[in-house]
C-alpha cells in the first residue's frame, strides 16, 4: 500500500526528519491560501500514486501568485497516467546546491533490510541502479538486532556524502530505518534529500510503501489506505478484496492460486486467445467468493467468454460448484458462456453438484482453455 507524499511527510516530520513547510490543498482557493502563508517559490505537487510525477507535469514551481493560480488550476483535476489528481501539496521551495538519494527496503535475496545511499539523487534512482549500481552504497541490517547507528554512518561515508553533512544524513537514515520497522514499511525513501547553501539537509520528497499483510497491526496506516483505481472494475475488485488485474483481451479468467491463474492466462495466449484479466479467488474460497468473481468478469464489457479453473487444495470443489450454481441461477439468460474445470479437493462432489445446464465442463486445463478460446472467437465472429 502506497502512502501519499503528504502522508509520508507528516510521518517523517513527526519523527524529526526536516521537511519543507507545506499544506495540502484540494481546490485552487486552498492552494492560493497555502502559498500566501508559505511564500515563494512554492512547489505545487500532485498527490497521486504514480511515479515520475515531475516528468508527467504533476509538479510545478510557482514564483508568484499568478503562477501559483495557473499551476494549481492546471494540476488539480488533471489526468496523470490514468489517475485523476484530487489534491496537491503546496510546499516551500528549497534552494539547494546538492541532492542525495537515501532509502530502506527489503533485500528479498538476502532476506534482510538494506540501507541505500547515493550522491546521484534527484534523478530516476532505478536507472542509476541499472546503469551504474556502484553509485549506490548499500548496507544490510540484521533484522533481529535492528540498525546500529555506525551502520548508517558507514553507508553514508561509503557513498561519498560531503563530510560536513554526513552525520545529518546518517541521522535521517537512522530515523528512516526506525520508521521502516515501526510502520511495517516495505519501502521507504527520500529522493532527493536536498542540501542547501547553508549546509542544511531537507527531505524534499517522501516515498513510503506499507506491507499490506501487516495492516492488521497498523490501524492508523490502514485508515490512510486510499483506494486508487484505474476503472470501475478495479474498484469493484478492491471492494471484493480480489487480486485482480485487468488486461486487454476478451477471455475472462477466474482461478485459485496466483501460479495456476497465471498459467491459465499463459495458456489462453498459447492457444491463440487473449486474456481479459487475472482474477485469483484465493485459497479456501467459499460459495460467496465465487459469486463475486463471476460478477466481476460479467461486468467487464470486453469479456466474450469465461474460463473457471479450480484446482482445489485448501479450496473445496463442492463449495466452488455451489457458488457457480448460485451465481448463474440468478440469470434468465447467462451473459457469457462459462467453461468450468474442477480438480483436486472435493472435485468429484463438486462435479455432482454443478449445474451443467448452465456451464460447459471440461476435465483438463488444456481442454477448458481451448474451449473458452473457441467460445470467445465465436462471439467476435
Amino acid at each position, binding site marked *: 500500500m502506497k502512502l501519499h507524499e503528504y502522508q509520508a511527510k507528516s510521518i517523517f516530520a513527526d519523527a524529526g526528519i526536516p521537511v519543507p513547510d507545506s499544506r495540502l490543498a484540494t481546490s485552487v482557493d486552498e492552494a492560493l491560501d497555502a502559498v500566501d502563508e508559505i511564500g515563494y517559490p512554492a512547489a505545487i505537487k500532485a498527490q497521486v500514486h504514480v511515479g515520475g510525477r515531475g516528468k508527467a507535469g504533476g509538479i510545478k514551481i510557482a514564483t508568484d501568485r499568478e503562477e501559483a493560480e495557473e499551476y494549481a488550476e492546471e494540476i488539480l483535476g488533471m489526468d496523470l497516467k490514468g489517475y485523476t489528481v484530487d489534491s496537491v501539496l503546496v510546499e516551500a521551495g528549497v534552494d539547494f546546491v546538492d541532492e542525495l538519494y537515501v532509502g530502506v527496503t527489503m533485500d528479498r535475496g538476502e532476506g534482510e533490510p538494506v540501507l541505500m545511499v547515493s550522491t546521484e539523487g534527484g534523478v530516476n534512482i532505478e536507472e542509476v541502479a541499472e546503469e551504474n549500481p556502484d553509485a549506490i552504497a548499500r548496507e544490510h541490517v540484521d533484522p533481529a538486532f535492528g540498525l546500529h547507528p555506525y551502520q548508517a554512518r558507514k553507508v553514508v561515508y561509503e557513498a561519498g556524502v560531503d563530510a560536513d553533512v554526513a552525520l545529518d544524513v546518517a541521522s535521517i537514515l537512522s530515523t528512516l530505518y526506525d520508521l521502516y520497522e515501526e510502520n511495517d514499511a516495505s519501502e521507504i525513501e527520500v529522493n532527493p534529500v536536498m542540501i542547501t547553501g547553508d549546509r542544511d539537509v531537507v527531505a524534499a520528497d517522501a516515498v513510503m510503501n506499507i506491507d499490506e499483510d*501487516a495492516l492488521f497491526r497498523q490501524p492508523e496506516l490502514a485508515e490512510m489506505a486510499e483506494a486508487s483505481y484505474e476503472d470501475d472494475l478495479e474498484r469493484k475488485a478492491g471492494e471484493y478484496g480480489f487480486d485482480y488485474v485487468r488486461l486487454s483481451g476478451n477471455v475472462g479468467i477466474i482461478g485459485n*492460486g496466483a*501460479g495456476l491463474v497465471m498459467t491459465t492466462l499463459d495458456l489462453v495466449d498459447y492457444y491463440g486467445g487473449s486474456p481479459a484479466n487475472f482474477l485469483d479467488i484465493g485459497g479456501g474460497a467459499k460459495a460467496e467468493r465465487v459469486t463475486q468473481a463471476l460478477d466481476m468478469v460479467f461486468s467487464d464489457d470486453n469479456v466474450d467468454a469465461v474460463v473457471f479453473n479450480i484446482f482445489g487444495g485448501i479450496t473445496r470443489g463442492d463449495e466452488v460448484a455451489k457458488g457457480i450454481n448460485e451465481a448463474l441461477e440468478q440469470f434468465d439468460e447467462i451473459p457469457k458462456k462459462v467453461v468450468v474445470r474442477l480438480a483436486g479437493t472435493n472435485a468429484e462432489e463438486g462435479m455432482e453438484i454443478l449445474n451443467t445446464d448452465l456451464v460447459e465442463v471440461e476435465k483438463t486445463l488444456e481442454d477448458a482453455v481451448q474451449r473458452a478460446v473457441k467460445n470467445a472467437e465465436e462471439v467476435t465472429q
Partner: protein
Amino acid sequence: MSIFVDDDTRVVVQGITGGEGRFHAGQMIEYGTNVVAGAVPGKGGQEVEGVPVYDTVDEAVEAEDADASVIFVPPAFAADAIFESLDTDLDLAVAITEGIPTQDMAKVNKRLSETDTRLLGPNCPGIITPGEAKLGILPGNIFSEGNVGLVSRSGTLTYQVVDNLTERGLGQSTAIGIGGDPIIGTSFIDALEAFEADTDTDAVVMCGEIGGEDEEQAARFIGEHMDTPVAGFIAGRTAPPGKRMGHAGAIVSGSGTGTAQSKIDALNDAGVPVGDTPEEVADHVEDFL
C-alpha cells in the same frame, strides 16, 4: 523413496483446533500421515481427530516424540508459531499460512539460520511423499508413487503439473511447495540439492513464476551441480510489468529482471527444457525416463 518426509515422520499440527487445521489434520491422517499431536495455546487436553492437543509445541514433542510440525496459524500469530517450532528443534516445520508480514519473516529467517530445522514456506501447500506422508493441504488423491521429484513456488500449479504427470503414469518421489512469498525457508536450490542426492529420484520438475531471481539462481545450480535431469515450467509469460499478480512474489519489475523470459532463458542455458504447457512438461519428463 523421498526427501524430507516419509512414513516415519511424526507430525504435530500447530493450530489444529481452527477450521483449516482441523480439516487438513483429518485429511493428513486419512492419507496415512503420522499426525501424533496438536499444539494450541489454551487448548491443551482436548482431542481433535483422535489426536491429543497440547498447549505448547514443546509439550507435544516431548509427549508424542514428534519431529515435524505443520503450521495452520493465522498471519498475526504465525511468525510466533514458527519461532516456537524452531525453538523446539524439530527437523521440519511447514508453514501453510498466507499473509505473514515480510519483516516478521526476515526475523524468522535470521533465527532459522541459527537452527538445524528445515522450514518450508510460508504461504505454501506443504510437502508430500506419495504413499507415505503428506504435511499440508495438497490434495492427496492426485499424487502417485514414483521417481519424479517436484519443487514449485505455487501451490495450485503444483497440483496441475502433478495431475499431468500422474495421468501419464509418472509417479512422484516427493513434491514440495516452497511458497510464493518474498522470504521463504527452503529455496529451489535446497530442494534441488536434496533431489540430486536422493537415489530414488530420477528426474525433477521445477515450477517457477515471474518475480525475484530465485529461478535464475536455481538454473545456475542445475547447470553446475546436477546430473539428474530437470524439466521446467514458468508461469506468468503474459503478465504485464509492474502489476502484482496475486501474491507478493509474482510481480515483474519494470527493468526486465524476474520476467518469465529471463527465467526461461536461464533454465534453457542450464540445459533445462521448459514446457509451454504443463502437458509439455510431462512430455519432457517422459523423455528423460
